């Protein structure tokens, strides 16, 4: 039982890191008012770029950096279309996902056979060996790859940046009321560009983590919908970094449970009252495919609940999300 929980937690942490990295980027971008549905595409480009770089140079850190960079390059396309050309953010984002998927499938098919030395599992310096000995959770949380620790560290940075730095607060202002922010002397265009680029960098990092640390191989389409879950996660977290931490681990736990659901039995014994009714329902709900819908359903419920319960002006969604901004002088 203990080893089962430890394994479950380990899988949770691994699944959560990908969502956390991609989700943080999307959160920053959306807080500045730009929805980017291209997460999946940016992640794939980051995953393939990072993988190829690591194969060629042998350095997984260099690969990680290239992954971030390529995510930003793709995000730049989105930024140019949505901010400069004022295009529809939804269309541009879907385009980005198609582009990233298409490019990586097209150019990545030759790299499937390659293998790499990716990020090794490690313990934290100095205190690591003691933390690993903590029962149950020690191995899961304190023997991880460098990118797992990095994701958690970055979450603190993102939280501090958004709520306690001038630049971050200006970014939030740009996402809430661009006209006002512009009047106050904040450059709406520059900040939105920055936010989208940071978002792309995070998505690229998430992809590179996937190919360099999580699975240590490249398969076309390897993100398998995680980019879309990251988009859902931002909504689930109501655009707040701290809730995102909870949400990422919750979605990660669901994913870990889904893979192991065959070995969990929650059905009641045949003699228990209503066993004939309860057991089929439990079996249906614990089916791995059905469990795959939970993050999406939870997000729809949270979104609907938030919209219905709160007045629209108190809603957590950035007020200027999806709105392009132009200075109208006439």
């Amino acid at each position: 039982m203990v080893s089962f929980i430890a394994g479950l937690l380990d899988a949770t942490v691994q699944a959560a890191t990908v969502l956390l990295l991609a989700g943080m980027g999307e959160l920053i971008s959306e807080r500045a008012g730009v929805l980017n549905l291209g997460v999946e595409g940016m992640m794939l480009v980051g995953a393939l770029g990072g993988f190829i770089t690591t194969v060629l140079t042998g350095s997984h850190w260099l690969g990680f950096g290239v992954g971030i960079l390529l995510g930003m390059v793709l995000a730049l396309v989105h930024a140019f279309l949505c901010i400069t050309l004022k295009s529809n953010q939804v269309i541009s984002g879907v385009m980005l996902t198609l582009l990233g998927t298409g490019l990586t499938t097209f150019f990545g098919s030759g790299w499937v056979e390659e293998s790499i030395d990716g990020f090794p599992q490690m313990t934290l310096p100095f205190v690591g060996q003691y933390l690993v000995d903590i029962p149950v959770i020690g191995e899961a949380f304190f023997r991880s790859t460098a990118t797992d620790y990095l994701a958690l560290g970055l979450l603190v940075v993102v939280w501090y940046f958004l709520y306690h730095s001038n630049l971050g607060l200006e970014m939030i202002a740009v996402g809430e009321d661009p006209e006002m922010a512009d009047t106050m002397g904040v450059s709406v265009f520059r900040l939105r560009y920055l936010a989208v680029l940071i978002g792309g960098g995070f998505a690229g990092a998430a992809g590179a983590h996937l190919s360099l640390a999580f699975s240590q191989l490249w398969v076309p389409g390897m993100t398998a919908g995680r980019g879309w879950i990251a988009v859902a996660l931002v909504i689930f977290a109501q655009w707040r970094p701290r809730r995102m931490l909870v949400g990422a681990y919750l979605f990660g736990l669901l994913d870990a449970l889904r893979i192991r659901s065959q070995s969990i039995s929650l059905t009641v014994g045949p003699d228990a009252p209503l066993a004939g009714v309860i057991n089929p329902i439990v079996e249906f709900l614990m089916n791995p495919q059905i469990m795959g819908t939970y993050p999406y359903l939870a997000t729809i419920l949270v979104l609907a609940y938030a919209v219905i319960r709160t007045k629209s002006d108190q809603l957590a969604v950035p007020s200027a999300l999806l709105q392009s901004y132009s200075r109208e002088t006439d």
Partner: protein
Amino acid sequence: MNVAVNVDAREDIPVWLAYGTPVFTVLAALAVSAIALVVLDVNPVAAYATMFVDTLFTEFGLRETLTKAVPLILTGLAVYLPLKAGLFNIGAEGQLVAGALAGTWVGLNVSLPGLALVPLMFVAAAVAGGIWAGIPAYLRARWDVNEIITSLLLTFVALAIQSYLLRGPMQGGTGNFPQSERFSEAATIPELFGGVHAGLLVAVCMVVVTYVLMTKTRLGFEITFVGSNDEAAQQAGMSKFYVYLLVFVVGGAFAAMGGISEIAGAQGRYRAGFEPGYGFTAIPIALLGRNSAFKVMLAGLFFAVLFVGGSSMEVAFGVPAALVEIIQALVILFLITAEFFKSYRVGIDVKRGPAETPAQPQRGDD
């Protein structure tokens, strides 16, 4: 020397720009995708020749194109109609899957003669697709919950339910594959001509119905009015709630019919992952054809040629068919770029001599 870029809003769109845009878009996308072919050491001219000539001038190619066009046109309409009311349905994929599943279930479990069974499968599919689309529509119409996000998320729910059903209750056939039992003769959509199934007829009919609805009826006028100014429309006594629900539910039913056509007409059984994302291709289709239902049909046919040509190119040159995805993405990219040049006039002023005044505050770009 002082260079300044002026961006001004256009008052009206020149004719050459309005008609030239789709053509320019497609040509530009093909030209840029040629780079990807060159990188893989493939002669792009030969590859495109295979892609289009083999598709448009062979019997096989034409049959495949017309067959593929059915789901593409119908999902295109599923995005087009809500777009007219100012709503974004990016969940056509989910509606297609929900409808295809319901239609498949009827086709496998109800025994009726073919003349009654196939229409019943279409009705079942349309109802399921309509309900699937009705959820985001109701949430939007009643509580203003963003329909883009909910319709998208419901797509992934539908895909998960699809793989649950095809690995569980609906699994059939030999082996342990995620697929359903084969359809009986009665549940198969009959042939229309030369190997093209009658789903094509359904698709063309729906295009005509949509065209008539949008151009000849009061309801179509209401949809366009709500789409261009929902507050004014409501003050004029129109029901935004009703229009929102209607366009989405009808759109979902269209997508669902596309799904069941493909399965009962072309595939013969439901296979998990039977379709390469028609519901997402529907977005560029609806954008290319946003002015009229017949243009949606043309755009659907064009993407069908791309899909079919992509596979023949894959066979002939060993190039991944993913090139089609790249072309699709680039079509959208150039389309929205062209959209900008349609609504803004961009001029470049070059003045000789030293800059006397600091650059004018520029509008629109930074």
